[in-house]
């Protein structure tokens, strides 16, 4: 596996290794939502997407957050990725305040989301090339590294110059993983990275995440719909429901607390809803 050492990250890293990788305290986010039931002159009301969420992640740990659509998972990821401003509480990544020191945080974090998100006419090599420049990596530095990383995620060498629009979802997601790895993040935010993938691609992505953790000290926050994926990849599992973090702990503790035999039963017991149901109060910002 290629080295992930990067001088930009070394410069932004804190000196102490005992500090949690992620510290979130009473984090709150609200969005304005129009009440469509009130007719043409409807008023906007504030709807909470996250309510006093508190947790921490140790360096090198992987936690999975489970929740229905609209539960606040993506809002949490987007807050930590510096794409949203909060309405209360605080969030720190390796000691850097996410909201007052976003540029230091950005050097440490990358993200893989449910949509691969690339310039579709450009090839994988071109997309990775320009993205690496944004993290201070020159063309000379990425010339050897991009083929190495693409090969590492199982992307065929003969398709590197093909437009992204001609690639399958699974292939695109592999390039998304390669993009995140290329920038050497110490915190990886995985927002439903395997949703919509075929079973084989899903297993390949999950295996790659395992290898990444084994080889490097990467901290991972995984938001997923896939209960089996959460159980197999994460040390601790959290349940986010209507913006509230109801539980965060090892899967055995979760089952014990709710007297459930399976994770699905525990989720139902905690939220009173089945996992596939969508939250009717979904907010539009997250």
């Amino acid at each position, binding site marked *: 596996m290629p080295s992930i050492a990067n001088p930009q990250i070394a410069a932004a890293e804190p000196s102490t290794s005992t500090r949690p990788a992620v510290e979130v305290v009473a984090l709150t986010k609200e969005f304005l939502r129009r009440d469509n039931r009130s007719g043409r002159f409807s008023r906007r009301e504030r709807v909470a997407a996250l309510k006093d969420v508190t947790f921490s992640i140790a360096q090198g740990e992987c936690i999975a957050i489970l929740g229905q659509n609209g539960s606040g998972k993506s809002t949490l990821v987007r807050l930590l990725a510096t794409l949203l401003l909060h309405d209360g509480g605080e969030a720190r990544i390796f000691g850097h305040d996410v909201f007052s020191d976003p540029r230091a945080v950005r050097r440490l974090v990358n993200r893989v989301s449910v949509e691969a998100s690339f*310039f579709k006419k450009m090839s994988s090599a071109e997309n990775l090339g320009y993205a690496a420049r944004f993290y201070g990596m020159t063309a000379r530095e990425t010339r050897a590294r991009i083929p190495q990383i693409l090969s590492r995620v199982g992307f065929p060498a003969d398709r590197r110059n093909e437009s992204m629009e001609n690639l399958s979802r699974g292939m695109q997601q592999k390039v998304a993983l390669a993009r995140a790895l290329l920038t050497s993040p110490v915190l990886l935010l995985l927002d439903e990275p395997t949703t919509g993938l075929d079973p084989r691609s899903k297993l390949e992505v999950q295996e790659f995440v395992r290898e990444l953790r084994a080889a490097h000290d990467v901290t991972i926050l995984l938001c997923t719909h896939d209960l089996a994926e959460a159980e197999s990849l994460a040390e601790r599992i959290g349940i986010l429901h209507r913006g509230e973090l109801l539980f965060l702990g090892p899967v055995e503790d979760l089952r014990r607390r709710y007297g459930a035999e399976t994770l699905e039963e525990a989720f139902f017991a905690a939220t009173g809803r089945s996992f596939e149901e969508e939250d009717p109060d979904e907010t539009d910002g997250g």
Partner: protein
Amino acid sequence: MRTPTALAVRSELVGLSGIVERNMYLVKRYVWWEIAFFVWTIANTLTIVFIAEGVEASGGRLDVNRQTTVLLIGAVIWAYLGLIFEILTETVAWERWEGTIEYTFMAPLSRTIHLGGMGIFAVAYGVARAALLFGSIAFFFNLEMPRADYGAALVVLAVASVSFIGIGIMTAVLPLISPEKGTQLGFIAQGLLLVVSGIYYSVEILPEPMQWLSTISPATYALEGIREAILEGAGVGSLGHDLWPLLLIGALSIPVGLFVFRIGERHAKRHGKLKRSG
């Protein structure tokens, strides 16, 4: 051993090169769009430039060669400014359409460098296209410009471009605030800028309030300066009355543009608009 400041500066410059590199890839990959747009621009320019010959054919008395050149300069500056505004507005709009906006805005690249890179590419690409457009139409009409000082005209265009980038940055924020209407509002800003700037006529014919607006529009000085350089052969030394206002507007418009964009970005982050679907 590089100092942290030197590393940071190097990183920003590499990031700037990444913005330019990405736009070059996009031009290459959408080359048929570019060709089609350029052909449309030529056709549009011809419809304007033929006006001088049309006036003469209908009995009007005018110096056709001079008036055709005046109209051509106006049309070329319109096309140039349109391209700069389009590229800068795409900073947000195109990225939202492609779905890359979140990845670009969470990269550790300062917004100044991000927008500066877009501006530099827009100017370089815009100048190349404007020169090609001007040359093609001038050749088509066999226009004679014996006194033209093309170097001075390019200097005026380069200085004016700083102001255009600053105003373009202000309009680039519109799709961030209003995903549905932002791009169209950018076109309105571009149109208003040109209507008060004497694009195909002298600003003296405008109503008084519009004449006042023309004094704060950089396009007014750009058009005057370029016309003087090409029609009268005015050198850089004698174009100070156009260059000084352009320098002043440029020095103000870039920081104001960045300030406006920063406010817009905060608004988008506060209300969850910094995302692919708007």
